[in-house]
C-alpha cells in the first residue's frame, strides 16, 4: 500500500473530494442565501433528509430520475415554506422552528419510508432511479484532469455551477439587491416599499430548494437508495462551511471543498492504523483550524467583501 502522499495525489482522491463536497456545497449555498436575507435556516439537515426520501419515492413511482429530482427539490421548497410561515407569520423563533423541522424529518422520513415500502431502514425494495453521470467530452481524455473532473454525477456539476449562479443572483440581480438590503437593514428596505416578509419567504424557499438538491444527490447519486438518517450531519457541516465562507458564494465553495478534502483524507487515513476515533475527528479539527485562520484574517476579508459589494 502506497504512502499517504500517493493516495492524496491520486486522481481517485481528487474525484472523491468533489463527490464528498457536493452535498455540503448545496446545503451551504442554501444556508448562505437565507442568512443573506437575515433569516438563518438551520433545518438543512432535516430538509435534505426529507428531500432524499421524496426523490427516491417519486423516482420509483414515476420511473424517472428527473421526476425524482424535481420532487426532491419541490419538497425542499415546501419545507422552506413551512419554516418561513412559522418564523415570519407566526413569529416562532426561527432556530426553534428549524430544530423542530429536523426533529420531524428524522421521524417522519422513517414513517414515510415505511408507508411507501414497508421497510423502515432502507428503500432498496423500491426500484428508484439514479441521476446520470456525465462525461465531459474533451476533458474526459486529458490524463489527470479527466479522471478527476469528468464522469461525475450531473448534480455535482450543478452544485459547482450553482456557486456562480448564486453569486449572480445575490450581486447582479434586483432580487439579490433586495435580499442583501433586507438582511442588512430591514427598516430601510421596508421604507422604500420592499416587502421584507416576501423577500425572506423567497430566500427561505430558495434555501430549501438547495437542500432539496443536496438530498436528491444523497439518495439518487451518492448512493442509490434512501436509508434512515443518511444525511448523517452533513446539514450541520454545511452551516459551518457557510459561516466559514465569509458570507460569499466563492468563500463557501472553498470552505465546502475544505470539508470535502478533510473527509476524503479521513477515509484515506484509515489505511494507516491510526486509532479510528482520531481519524473520525479529522474533518472537524480541520474546520476549527480553518475557523481560526479565517478569524485572524477576518478584517481584511471584511473589506474585500465591501469591495465586491460595490461591484
Amino acid at each position, binding site marked *: 500500500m*502506497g504512502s499517504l502522499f500517493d493516495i492524496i495525489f491520486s486522481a481517485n482522491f481528487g474525484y472523491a473530494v468533489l463527490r464528498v463536497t457536493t*452535498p455540503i456545497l448545496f446545503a451551504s449555498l442554501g444556508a448562505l442565501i437565507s442568512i443573506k436575507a437575515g433569516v438563518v435556516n438551520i433545518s438543512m439537515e432535516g430538509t435534505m433528509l426529507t428531500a432524499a426520501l421524496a426523490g427516491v419515492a417519486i423516482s420509483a413511482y414515476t420511473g424517472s430520475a428527473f421526476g425524482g429530482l424535481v420532487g426532491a427539490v419541490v419538497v425542499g421548497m415546501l419545507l422552506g415554506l413551512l419554516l418561513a410561515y412559522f418564523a415570519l407569520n407566526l413569529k416562532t423563533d426561527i432556530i426553534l422552528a428549524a430544530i423542530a423541522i429536523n426533529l420531524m424529518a428524522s421521524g417522519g422520513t422513517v414513517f414515510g419510508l415505511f408507508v*411507501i415500502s414497508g421497510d423502515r431502514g*432502507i428503500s432498496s*425494495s423500491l426500484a428508484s432511479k439514479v441521476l446520470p453521470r456525465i462525461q465531459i467530452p474533451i476533458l474526459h481524455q486529458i490524463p489527470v484532469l479527466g479522471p478527476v473532473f469528468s464522469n461525475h454525477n450531473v448534480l455535482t456539476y450543478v452544485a459547482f455551477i450553482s456557486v456562480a449562479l448564486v453569486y449572480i443572483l445575490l450581486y447582479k440581480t434586483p432580487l439579490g439587491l433586495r435580499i442583501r438590503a433586507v438582511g442588512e437593514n430591514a427598516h430601510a428596505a421596508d421604507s422604500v416599499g420592499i416587502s421584507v416578509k416576501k423577500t425572506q419567504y423567497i430566500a427561505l424557499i430558495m434555501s430549501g430548494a438547495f437542500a432539496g438538491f443536496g438530498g436528491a444527490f444523497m439518495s439518487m447519486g451518492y448512493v442509490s437508495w434512501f*436509508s434512515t438518517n443518511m444525511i448523517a450531519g452533513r446539514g450541520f457541516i454545511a452551516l459551518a462551511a457557510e459561516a466559514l465562507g465569509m458570507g460569499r458564494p466563492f468563500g463557501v465553495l472553498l470552505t465546502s471543498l475544505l470539508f470535502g478534502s478533510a473527509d476524503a483524507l479521513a477515509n484515506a487515513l*484509515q*489505511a494507516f492504523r491510526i486509532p*479510528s476515533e482520531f481519524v473520525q475527528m479529522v474533518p472537524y479539527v480541520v474546520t476549527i483550524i480553518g475557523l481560526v485562520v479565517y478569524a485572524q484574517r477576518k478584517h481584511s476579508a471584511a473589506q474585500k467583501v465591501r469591495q465586491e459589494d460595490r461591484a
Partner: protein
Amino acid sequence: APAAPAEPAEPGAPAEPSEDALKVVLLLNGTLGDRSFFDSAHAGVQMIEQQFGAEVRTIEMSYDQTRWEPTLWEVSEQDWDIIILGTWQMTEYLEEIAQEFPDNRYIIFDTSVDYSVGDLSNVYSILYKQNEGSFLAGALAAKVTTSDMELSNDRKLIGFLGGMDIPVINDFLVGYIEGALYVDEDVSVYVSYIGSFDDSASGKENALAQYNAGVDIGFNVAGQAGLGQLDAAQEVNRYAIGVDSDQAMVFAESDPDKAELVLTSMMKRVDNSLVRAAEMHIAGTLPYGEAEALGLVEEAVGLANNDFFERNVPAEIRAELEELAEMIINGDITVSSAIGMSTDELNQIRDAVKP
C-alpha cells in the same frame, strides 16, 4: 403494499387470551425493516406462529434507549409464556427485571445475561459464534483475492468495513482475519471503520477507498452504512460479502446486477435459533438458566447459500469452504473471539495484516 405494523393489542393483556396456545412476545430494541437482524428475529417468531400455532406479537421499541426498560417492565407484567428480546444493551435491564418475575420465561439472543448477579434460572441466553461465520467469510475472501476469478486482481488484499471500532464488530474482524490467514499467510486486510451505522454514503466512500487501493473483495459489518459497500462494489466492479442477513436479497429484485457482486453473506440465523428454542421449550428441554453459544453446528451462523453463491463462486472454493466448516464443527479448528480481548491484543492482530 406495506406489511401492517405490529398488530395492536389491548393494553395490559394480549388479544383474546386462549388457554392452550403458546403466547410469545418479541421485543425489538430497534425497528423492523432493517432487512437484517431484527427482521430475522421477527421471521423467527412468525415461523413459531406457523409451526406451533403460537400466538405471537412483536413490539418495536425503536432505537431510543430510554424506552427499553419501561417496555420490558410492562410486558413482564402481562401474561406471556415466552418473552424474547435481544442484544447486549438489554441484558442489564433483563438481569434486574427477570428476578422480579420468577414465573416468566425469557429468551435473550445475541448476548448472555450475567448469571452470577442473581437467580436468573428463568432466562435462556443465545450467543452466536459470529467469529466462526466470519472465519469462513475471511477464508472465502482470501480464496477469491488469490483466485483468477474475473473481477479479482493479483494483489493479495482484502477489505473489512466495520461500523465502529467496538467489540462486537471486532469479533467479526478477528474471525475474518484468522480465516483469511488460514487460507493464505500473506493476505493483508484493509480495515476501515465508518464511524456510523447509518451513513451509507460514507460507507460507500470508505469502500471505494479500499477498492481503489487494490482491494478486490470486502466484508461489510456496519448495518445500513455497510450497504454502501455494495454500491461501491458495483461502481468499481468488485466483490462484496454481506453480513447478518442475506444482503444479496436486499437488491435481488430491485437491482440484480448489484446482487450479483455480493458473493454471499455471513448470516446470523436468529430465526433458526428462536425456532429451535421454542421447540425445546415446548419439549421442556430448553436449558433456562444457561447461556448457549450457537455456531455452525446449530446453523445459527453461516454463509448464505444462495443462487449468487452457487453461480459466482467456483465449485472448488465452495467445496473447500464446506471442509473448513466441517473442521470447525468437529473442533479441528477453533476460532478465537474478540470478546475478552484487550485493545492491545486487538491492535497486534490488526497491525499484523496491515497492508
